[in-house]
């Protein structure tokens, strides 16, 4: 198996989880109700933990240690999709992003748990059990709020419209896409996207929210190749603020 292709996949998985975990953690102390404050904080911990698991696999393949990889790279070295790096905005945007992202992430993890590349299969099998609860959380809240007040529905619909172009960027194929599919690592991003669409539609049908017509949407690509919005570098600078005081120190 081409090791570069595996590394590329691992970076994508790890960076997505790290950046969204970081964003989720920004809700601590600011949630609309205490229960949601706690929920976003819980998911943040899981996601950062997942990213660590993938960075650890990368280290086993000869990359630098997880702290160095996570805390010292610049934005153009990150492989996350652009959806996860966007600022939290209001709770409606964070919830919609969480719904769109986690419904895709669980499919990726389910597929990877069947992977021909055993180290990923093992980690994905373990982690998908946790992401299951993130999906349950997102779907429950979308169903609740998506059928509640006019105000809530309007807010969610507007956030959904705003997030969709970025969400489609989650499925940007890597340059090793075909190789990964042929080697049985996982069925690839097109397959993830097709299943994702079915699942989010099944939830949205139970609400007053409507998925925008994808024909009219320009997907925001580039994240997988190091192209990012202006929001990623400040996030990384903040994350590394203390670490960079002395990268050789033990904190």
């Amino acid at each position, binding site marked *: 198996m081409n090791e570069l292709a595996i590394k590329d996949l691992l970076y994508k998985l790890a960076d997505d989880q790290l950046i969204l975990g970081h964003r989720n953690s*920004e809700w*601590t102390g600011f949630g609309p109700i205490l229960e949601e404050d706690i929920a976003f904080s819980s998911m943040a911990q899981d996601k950062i933990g997942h990213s660590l698991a993938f960075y650890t696999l990368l280290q086993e393949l000869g990359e630098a240690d997880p702290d160095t990889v996570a805390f010292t790279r610049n934005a153009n070295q990150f492989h996350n999709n652009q959806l996860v790096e966007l600022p939290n905005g209001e709770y409606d945007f964070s919830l919609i992003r969480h719904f769109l992202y986690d419904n895709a992430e669980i499919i990726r993890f389910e597929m990877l748990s069947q992977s021909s590349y055993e180290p990923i299969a093992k980690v994905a099998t373990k982690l998908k059990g946790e992401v299951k609860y993130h999906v349950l959380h997102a779907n429950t809240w979308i169903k609740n709020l998506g059928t509640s007040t006019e105000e809530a529905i309007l807010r969610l619909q507007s956030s959904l419209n705003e997030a969709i172009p970025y969400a489609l960027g989650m499925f940007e194929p890597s340059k090793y896409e075909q190789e990964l599919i042929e080697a049985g690592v996982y069925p690839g991003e097109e397959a993830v996207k097709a299943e994702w669409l079915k699942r989010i539609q099944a939830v949205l049908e139970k609400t007053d929210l409507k998925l925008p017509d994808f024909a009219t949407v320009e997907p925001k690509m580039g994240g997988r190749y190091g192209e990012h919005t202006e929001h990623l570098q400040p996030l990384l600078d903040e994350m590394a603020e*203390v*670490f960079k005081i002395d990268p050789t120190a033990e904190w």
Partner: protein
Amino acid sequence: MYGGGNVFEATKFDDLQTEDPAKLAEFEARIARGEKIEPNDWMPQLYRKQLIRMIEQHAHSEIIGALPEGTWITRAPGFRRKMAQMAKVQDEVGHAQLLYSAAETLGKTREQMLTDLINGKSKYSNVFNYPAFTWADSNIISWLIDAGAIVNQMANAKGSYGPYSRALERICAEEAFHLKYGHDAVVHMATGSPKQREMIQAALNRWWPPIMTFFGPSDKMSTHTETLMRWKVKMASNDECRQQFLDMYVPKIWELGLTVPDPNLKKNMETGQWEYTEPDWDEFKRVINGDGPCNAERLAVRRTAEERGAWVRRALLNPKAKYVKPLA
């Protein structure tokens, strides 16, 4: 994280004149026997009022206390600290949830309590009106403020009100982990590079005065709390808590080669009591009354969070649902 100490109004003899003497005697006898008072049991109005006040202040201290440390979640250096800092602060918000529920059993809703917090009507632990300038400040809070909170909360866990005392037992179990986390982080700083040592000493210097006021004013200047002590609402005096804290933690601070910024701090071997420079209680009062370095900022953050989240709470309200007190 709550140090108590500054919460009580003077109890007046008149407060008890309207109570049924037989019921009051039975209530006091139950407490003397070590029984817990439960939400639907008879209790004097004063007991209810003071407990709501105390539990509510404790709950507010947890969510406001999440702010100075919370700002360091996104900056925590390395995976190990990042994950622990998140879990730690999340615990504090969870404590608030538990405590608001405990207070609700006495008849005040969470929404009312949060409104009183935002309007400046209810107080919270004064230490959180001080800023956490650096990562090291956050470490000092995790270690020493949590340590102080444990001293206070362990005492109050033996109090007479069932829901509060049960919540405190759970809270103390979690705080014990925070203490270990905070200590570990401080040890790494104190034994680390010269820069790290300088950061942690500077943070200790900043935090020592607020820490010394954490348990509230000296007993000689506190309002009378005999009734509340007899009712097992207040379980230990402010000075007792402060002495216990100094006894447990000053040696640990010295052990790390750090200096406590009080030249008069020493243990008097004859009395067994710690002697120290009297904290600036005028400043303490000024800060409690709103004029501290971060009062306005803390409340503004809380107010913004409440305002931004209002639409979610409105959307969750089901007009057919009936308000019920939480189980405790």
